[in-house]
């Protein structure tokens, strides 16, 4: 177990190191830097820019800068935002929390809907409920998440059922604890709905495919012949057997949700990483962009790591493989 976990963690660390190097390389290869654009501004003295350059280490070779940045990162320092004039870490923390809240809830909701729907559809394979659900999933699949988010936003604005945009109502600070949670929940409904609707068709299709295969297997037929009730058959034995591809999909869906949340956050003006990153790109705020991309990779890698460990627990084949290696 420990060996397997260590191997997966080493893999995750490799991914993170690679991504940090990659984003750093992008930033180095790119023409046009924040400081270069400051040069065009006649109100800023050349000396100031030179001082800023050496302060941020811009005049040093790339490898040095990368090493410096890594060292700072080890201390939890993500760099300095040019645009905000503030360290990046605290700036990102609030946004990352909001994004995690949004994607976490969406992930839970999407899976807790997709699993029963997919299983239900697989059990009635070929019947009209299955047909209807498959067609519905395909229908949702072709609607891009931008369109979905915009459509939901239009509905919310027209009907006034849900607050359209933001995270809290004006004056939320003065509300009581329960009222504030309720207020945030209402604001969450729209982005969560958009995210769940855009991920669910893919999940339902995969869950259905996995269960169609498993339900047809000999051991489940035998179990059915022994008179094991259907609920237990599906949830206790079927789920275990179908778990492997689904857990890999769980790791994948974290990435899909993170990408999706970027757009959904911008459309519904949820104050997460998406709008913040977009703003940073437009302002050429180098360290904010690098920090944001890196943070999103950390989330993704953590999600994949969790999926890997879950897989170890769920799939005996991996366990025996892990011990053998």
């Amino acid at each position: 177990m420990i060996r397997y976990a260590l191997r997966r963690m080493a893999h995750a660390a490799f991914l993170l190191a690679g991504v940090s190097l990659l984003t750093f390389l992008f930033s180095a290869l790119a023409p046009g830097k924040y400081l270069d654009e400051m040069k065009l501004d006649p109100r800023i003295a050349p000396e100031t820019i030179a001082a800023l350059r050496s302060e941020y280490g811009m005049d040093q070779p790339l490898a040095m800068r990368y090493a410096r940045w890594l060292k700072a990162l080890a201390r939890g320092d993500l760099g300095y935002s040019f645009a905000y004039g503030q360290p990046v870490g605290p700036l990102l923390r609030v946004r990352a929390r909001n994004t995690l809240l949004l994607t976490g809830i969406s992930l839970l909701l999407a899976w807790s809907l997709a699993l029963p729907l997919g299983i239900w559809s697989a059990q009635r394979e070929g019947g009209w409920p299955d047909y209807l659900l498959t067609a519905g999933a395909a229908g949702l699949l072709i609607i891009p998440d931008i369109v979905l988010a915009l459509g939901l936003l239009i509905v919310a604005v027209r009907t006034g059922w849900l607050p359209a945009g933001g995270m809290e109502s004006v004056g939320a600070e003065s509300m009581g604890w329960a009222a504030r949670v309720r207020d945030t929940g209402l604001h969450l409904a729209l982005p969560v709905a958009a995210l769940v609707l855009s991920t669910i068709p893919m999940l339902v299709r995969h869950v259905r495919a996995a269960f169609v295969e498993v339900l047809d297997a000999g051991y489940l037929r035998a179990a059915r012949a022994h008179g094991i009730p259907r609920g237990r058959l599906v949830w206790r034995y079927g789920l275990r057997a179908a778990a492997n591809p689904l857990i890999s999909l769980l790791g994948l869906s974290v990435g899909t949700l993170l990408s999706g949340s970027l757009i959904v956050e911008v459309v519904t003006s949820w104050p997460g990483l998406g709008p913040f990153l977009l703003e940073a790109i437009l302002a050429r705020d180098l360290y904010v962009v690098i920090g944001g991309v890196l943070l999103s990779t950390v989330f993704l890698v953590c999600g994949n790591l969790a999926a890997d460990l879950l897989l170890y627990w769920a799939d005996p084949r991996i366990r025996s493989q892990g011990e053998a290696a």
Partner: protein
Amino acid sequence: MRLWRNLRGWLAALMVMHAVILCAGFFAPYDPVSQDREHPYAPPARIHFRNARGEFHWRPFVYALRPQADSFDSYAEDTTAPIPIHFLVEGARYRLLGVLPWRVHLFGAGDGQTRVALLGTDGYGRDQLSRLLWGGQISLLAGLLATALALGCGLLIGAAAGYWGGWRDEVLMRGAELFLALPWLYLLFALRAFLPLAVTPLEAFFLVCGVIGLVGWARPARLVRGVVLSAKERDYVRAARGFGAGGGYLLRRHILPQTWGVLLTQAAILAPQYVLAEVTLSFLGLGVPEPAPSWGNLLASLQQYSVLTSYWWMSLPALAMTPFFLGYLGLASALQRWADPSKMDSGGMGSNG
């Protein structure tokens, strides 16, 4: 046989849709950037067959929209003078298929002056239908070019990794893993972040194609590598090598032809994803800039609350995109079944990549 018919159906539908976009100049009544400051946010024109006195006309007609005095965006139909719609009328100059100069449009107002905006107009009075059709050219072309780029890079890298193996394979596949590990939109953002912001539409177009294509090489590379790995151990390849065939010849002649199925399927899966990536970038203001139309920046105005609430026709372009995605989804699953009839389709647009 049924598979082939299915595949052909989707292919034909897609070809018709692309042909309409390709001949945007003919189907679009106006130039996509020409403005009509008299009619900002005009609602879609109503086609009439029956005039104010209730008389029926075979030729459809519209009424000119007169701006109301009290506000800038409310209009009334001038029912005194019906304007017939004519087909194959001469109008603004354009180049058919990008080369042939022509002036004939599918339809237009009979008086040659009134503008018939079937999908309404935007804040500058530009015809939304024309912008939608011309924007489709940019978005679809960007998506297809990016797909070609991603597949080209994927093919090269995958073939190199699979054929040579050893440390090269290790390095290349680790790199692919890296690209697959990142949420693609963040990666796109990161790459776009460090490229210049203020660029001409043409530069922006190639920039967007390049960025999307370069981010997407990893998945096709992995698949191609798998095919190459299995193909290079086949008997006929070994036999050819035994006869002294070189690496380049083997790859070109015996190994790469095997990757066709994978590449075609990937193309059908990736193309809509990349069209969508362009739409996303342009929607966020990082892609093709105004005044050039693209499906993304057509939707960008919906970020304004007032547009979202007051002008419902501004969201019509979003609906117009979905048939293309449906076509590509159908094509992808038909191709998958065609390439491997034993397997159910499981891919699609939603997957990460």
